[in-house]
């Protein structure tokens, strides 16, 4: 699928810091969010996701650094230029605030403040609500809505203006189960029509379902992604059971009875590195060559090119005993059940 100018960053961050009191809430050396893609920002609560969003949305000034949003500086003097830049951004907050009026009035609000006629606002608001499956709530007073309904109204309100950049903060936290697939497909629809979307979530698997572009924050700083082997391919049924056929042609045994496109992850701890194949019940045995070794904490991560790039965790002792170096030939062994499969959200393919 065509992406709108995929190499232009929608948001670029350089040397950005934000300090509350004596706590550094955010400190990012350099990050870019390419236009026309879904980006997931993951991390535990308090990692700085919301702070980053607030800075991007222009709600707060940064203490230092350069933040360019849609090609402009969001933290400048307020004025017409600032207003028109703000109006190209949609923001759905984690704890949505709905104005005390009807749900539809809320969704019409961003249109009305842009001077769009009442009739057109009404139509577009209705469409946005229908998109999120909450058209029937239009006349309801917001005080009577459930948390999940509020979340959906808030998102409808954020997308009704068809923003170029959409910020969605923890949309899954309060969402009802039926709302999750609706939201996912809505977001992917939007991205296919050129919207850049930033989703913050502490739920890693939700992030993987939406995107392979993941920024992990910890203590306000970008952290290396929790090392997970993320694979994408087609589950097919074979004589020796279901297998995941990856894009390079590599085949991996998986434990599932459903075929079709899937995303998969394998924890590095579940992958055993050995010099030679050994006898075990594990069904996946792949030969490959080490392309990188990285020691982090008390674990050494060995990245192995075995037709597909996989990372395995080994103890420093094993690393010494096996004399692992870049270029060593090794065997990777893991169980079919170690391959966690999940549906990729929506149907739009994305490349990393």
């Amino acid at each position: 699928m065509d992406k709108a100018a995929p190499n232009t960053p929608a948001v670029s961050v350089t040397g950005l810091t934000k300090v509350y009191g004596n706590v550094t809430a955010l400190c990012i050396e350099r990050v870019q969010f390419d236009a026309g893609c879904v980006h997931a920002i993951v991390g535990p609560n308090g990692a700085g996701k919301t702070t980053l969003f607030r800075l991007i949305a222009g709600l707060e000034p940064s203490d230092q650094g350069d933040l360019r949003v849609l090609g402009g500086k969001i933290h400048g003097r307020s004025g017409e230029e600032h207003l028109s830049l703000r109006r190209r951004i949609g923001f759905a907050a984690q704890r949505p605030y709905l104005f005390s009026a009807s749900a539809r009035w809320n969704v019409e609000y961003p249109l009305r403040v842009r001077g769009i006629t009442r009739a057109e606002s009404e139509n577009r608001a209705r469409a946005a609500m229908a998109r999120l499956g909450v058209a029937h709530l239009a006349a309801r007073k917001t005080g009577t809505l459930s948390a999940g309904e509020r979340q959906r109204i808030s998102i409808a309100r954020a997308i009704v203006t068809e923003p170029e950049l959409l910020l969605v903060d923890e949309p899954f936290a309060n969402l009802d189960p039926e709302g999750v697939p609706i939201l996912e497909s809505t977001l992917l629809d939007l991205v296919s029509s050129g919207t850049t979307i930033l989703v913050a979530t502490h739920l890693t698997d939700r992030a993987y379902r939406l995107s392979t572009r993941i920024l992990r924050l910890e203590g306000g700083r970008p952290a290396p992604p929790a090392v997970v082997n993320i694979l994408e391919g087609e589950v097919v049924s074979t004589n020796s059971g279901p297998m995941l056929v990856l894009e390079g042609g590599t085949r991996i045994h998986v434990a599932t009875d459903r075929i079709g496109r899937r995303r998969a992850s394998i924890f590095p701890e579940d992958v055993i590195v050995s010099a030679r194949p050994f006898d075990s019940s594990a069904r996946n045995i792949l030969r490959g060559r080490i392309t990188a070794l990285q020691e982090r904490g008390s674990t050494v991560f060995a990245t192995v090119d075995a037709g597909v790039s996989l990372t395995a965790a080994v103890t420093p002792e094993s690393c010494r005993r096996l004399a692992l170096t870049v270029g060593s030939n090794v065997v990777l062994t893991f169980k079919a059940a170690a391959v966690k499969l999940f549906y990729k959200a929506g149907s739009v393919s994305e490349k990393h």
Partner: protein
Amino acid sequence: MDDSILLGGAAHAFRLIASGDARVYEAAFTSIWISCTATAFASAIGLPLGFFTAIGRFKGRVLLVAILNTLLALPTVIVGLFVYALIRRVSLLGPLDLLFSPGAMIVGQTFLAIPIVAALCLTAIETLDPAARETAFTLGASRKRLLLTVAWEARHGLLVAVAVAGGRLIGEVGVSMMLGGNITHYTRTLTTAIALETSKGEFAVAMAMGLILLALALGLNLLLRWIQGMRGGRLG
């Protein structure tokens, strides 16, 4: 005061109310129109004052907030004295010949109510969830629209501010007595009439007016409860 005054007075009070006693109703009418007018002026000044003090970030803001809250405790007599000095015939506003007229009472009550309206408005805006303003901001509201939205979201609190001020004014006696002069058919309100009738020993008439005052205050409080009970209204 023995029970016969209380009970007999109350009974007589109801007779006066039922028979449409001119003194009683005239005073009630004067009370209502003067207090309502003063409340309107006080709101026109106090609401913007409280609003911009709440959202503003200017030098002396803390001082202004402290002053407003202090003025809340101002005795009505002091307000009366202040306005008296301002409008007496030999002073600045003397040529308007306001002293001992409904206009003087309105000026006095307006000054009395401004701090009430402003302080309560300030609290209403300050206690409003900051997310209201931020949401309007992220939804693309202009600065002016932002303020309107904040006011709309705080509307219950603002109405309460106005209603509380109205309640205070209708039961107020110091300013009315001092600036209005309690002139028959002209500046005699329920409260000044009550003071007068009590001093004359006309307890039943005083009681009747007291009951009307109570009824008015009750009506106002019911209105207040209703406003506070309202949630999620429509934009008018």
